[in-house]
């Protein structure tokens, strides 16, 4: 009886463990067949999966997933670096900047040979933080023989002391007057040539070497004051045939008279577009070269400069005028005892026309007076400019010159110039 009971329980348990079944009526053979079918289906599915996996591996999908992850990391790092690079250039303490101007020109005198010429004036700006700027300009020109001349136009270190004062040290453009320091670049000058006396070796000092303090301050309302004061080596005098041939004001790195020049300019702007300037300088000068020979020990003599300038703009009208004078006193014991006065003044009117104000007419009158008759010149200059861009101009002009008969200062000229400031 016990044996029969255990057998009965085993049968019941086995039937229960067999799981869901169509019913007690399903035979063991049927269940086995069903299980075999399921096993076969699973094996088939597994085989398909394995085959799919093998194909994926073969096609590189699995391998690429890892590579792709690596590339995403690299791309993210690159993007972060690029983001830093996109902003860091704005935040550097040092900035370098190349500027300047260049021009090509054709000049034809009425009784001479016309010729092309060209010049290039690169300017270098090196700025450290917002306190210091080193700026230099080279004047690279071709002379009549095709030789290239390179002149250090200026080279200064500018230290911004505060909002209203800048210390300038080195070779600087003369702050006396307006034309030489601000208007002479070819893309700014509205006529192809400088007014007589405002070029090199004329009435207007060109440059000097020393120290300068300059800046600007706002007064009441829109009124403004600009100022510049300097101490520098000053000019040297060149003698020829017993007289002073010219005043060398290009900025010389010596001081034969051992007496520094003091000078300055102050300008007042009662309204924003009207500027009134007053300039002056005084000191000593000495003849250091006579008949192309160096000279030592010639006596010092008084030297002074005086200038006035005015600028006014109204809509498309631009008006300018300037007077400048250099005076050298007599020195009875000098190889060139007689002094002299070089003075020049000009007035200029320019007016822009056209839908884009890209055509400009210019009229200028200049009167230059020198101790040497062959240098003195009176000039009317008429010009038409086409502004390709505000800083690229094509200038066509004609000079009506009145000087000593037979001299170049008496010859009328055509001038065509292409100028570009960058």
């Amino acid at each position, binding site marked *: 009886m016990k044996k029969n009971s255990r057998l009965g329980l085993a049968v019941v348990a086995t039937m229960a463990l067999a799981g869901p079944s169509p019913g007690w009526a399903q035979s063991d053979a049927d269940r086995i067949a069903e299980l075999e079918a399921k096993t076969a289906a699973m094996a088939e599915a597994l085989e398909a999966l394995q085959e799919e996996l093998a194909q994926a591996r073969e096609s590189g999908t699995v391998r690429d997933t890892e590579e792709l992850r690596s590339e995403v990391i690299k791309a993210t790092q690159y993007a972060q670096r690029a983001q830093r690079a996109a902003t860091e*250039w*704005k935040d550097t303490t040092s*900035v*370098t*900047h190349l500027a300047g101007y260049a021009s090509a020109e054709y000049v034809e005198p009425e009784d001479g040979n016309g010729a092309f010429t060209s010049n290039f004036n690169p*300017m270098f*700006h*090196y*700025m450290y933080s*917002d*306190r210091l*700027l080193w*700026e230099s300009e080279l004047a690279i020109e071709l002379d009549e023989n095709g030789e290239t001349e390179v002149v250090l136009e200026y080279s200064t270190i*500018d230290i*911004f*002391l*505060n*909002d*209203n*004062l*800048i210390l300038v040290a080195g070779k600087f453009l003369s702050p006396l007057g307006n034309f030489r320091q*601000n*208007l002479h670049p070819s*893309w*700014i000058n509205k006529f192809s040539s400088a007014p007589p006396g405002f070029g090199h070796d004329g009435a207007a000092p060109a440059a000097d070497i020393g120290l300068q*303090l*300059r*800046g*600007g*301050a*706002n007064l009441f309302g829109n009124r403004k*004051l*600009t*100022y*510049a*004061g300097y101490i520098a080596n000053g000019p040297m005098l060149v003698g020829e045939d017993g007289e002073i041939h010219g005043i060398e004001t290009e900025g010389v790195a010596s001081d034969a008279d051992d007496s520094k020049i*003091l*000078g*300055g*300019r*102050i*300008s007042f702007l009662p309204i*924003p*577009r009207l500027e009134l300037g*007053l*300039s*002056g*300088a*005084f000191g000593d000068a000495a003849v250091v070269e006579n008949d192309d020979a160096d000279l030592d020990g010639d006596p010092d003599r008084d030297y*002074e*400069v*005086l*200038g006035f300038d005015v*600028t006014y*703009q109204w809509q498309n009208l*631009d008006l300018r005028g300037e007077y400048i004078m250099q005076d050298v006193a007599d020195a009875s014991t000098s190889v060139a005892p007689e002094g002299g006065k070089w003075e020049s003044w000009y007035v200029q009117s320019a007016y822009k026309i056209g839908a884009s104000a890209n055509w400009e007419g210019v009229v200028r009158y200049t009167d230059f007076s020198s101790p040497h008759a062959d240098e003195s010149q009176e000039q009317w200059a008429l010009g038409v400019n086409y*502004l390709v*861009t*505000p*800083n690229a101009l094509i200038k066509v002009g004609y000079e009506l010159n009145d000087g000593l008969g037979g001299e170049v200062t008496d010859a009328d000229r055509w001038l065509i110039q292409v100028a570009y400031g960058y």
Partner: protein
Amino acid sequence: MSKLAVKTALLATIVAGGAAMFEPEAQAAEPTATDEADPMTFARGAKTWSETCARCHNMRDPKELRDDQWRAAVAHMRVRAGLTGQETRDVLKFLQESN
């Protein structure tokens, strides 16, 4: 006469510059945090730019230079044109936001 002009210029330089020495305001040539927050900086810069640059030359397009290049160019013009530090910061802000 020239000595009078020189003395006037030197006196103005010393007085204006010396007085400014005692001003506590920023000396920076670039827009400061105060300038960045001041909505009028741009407007002041545009006004100064239009009134000052044409005193000597044709107006340049702000798009001619990048922000960093304008830093050096405007510093150069500060020296040339007698801009104050505040005017320089205003103009630089205007140019950098207009290029």
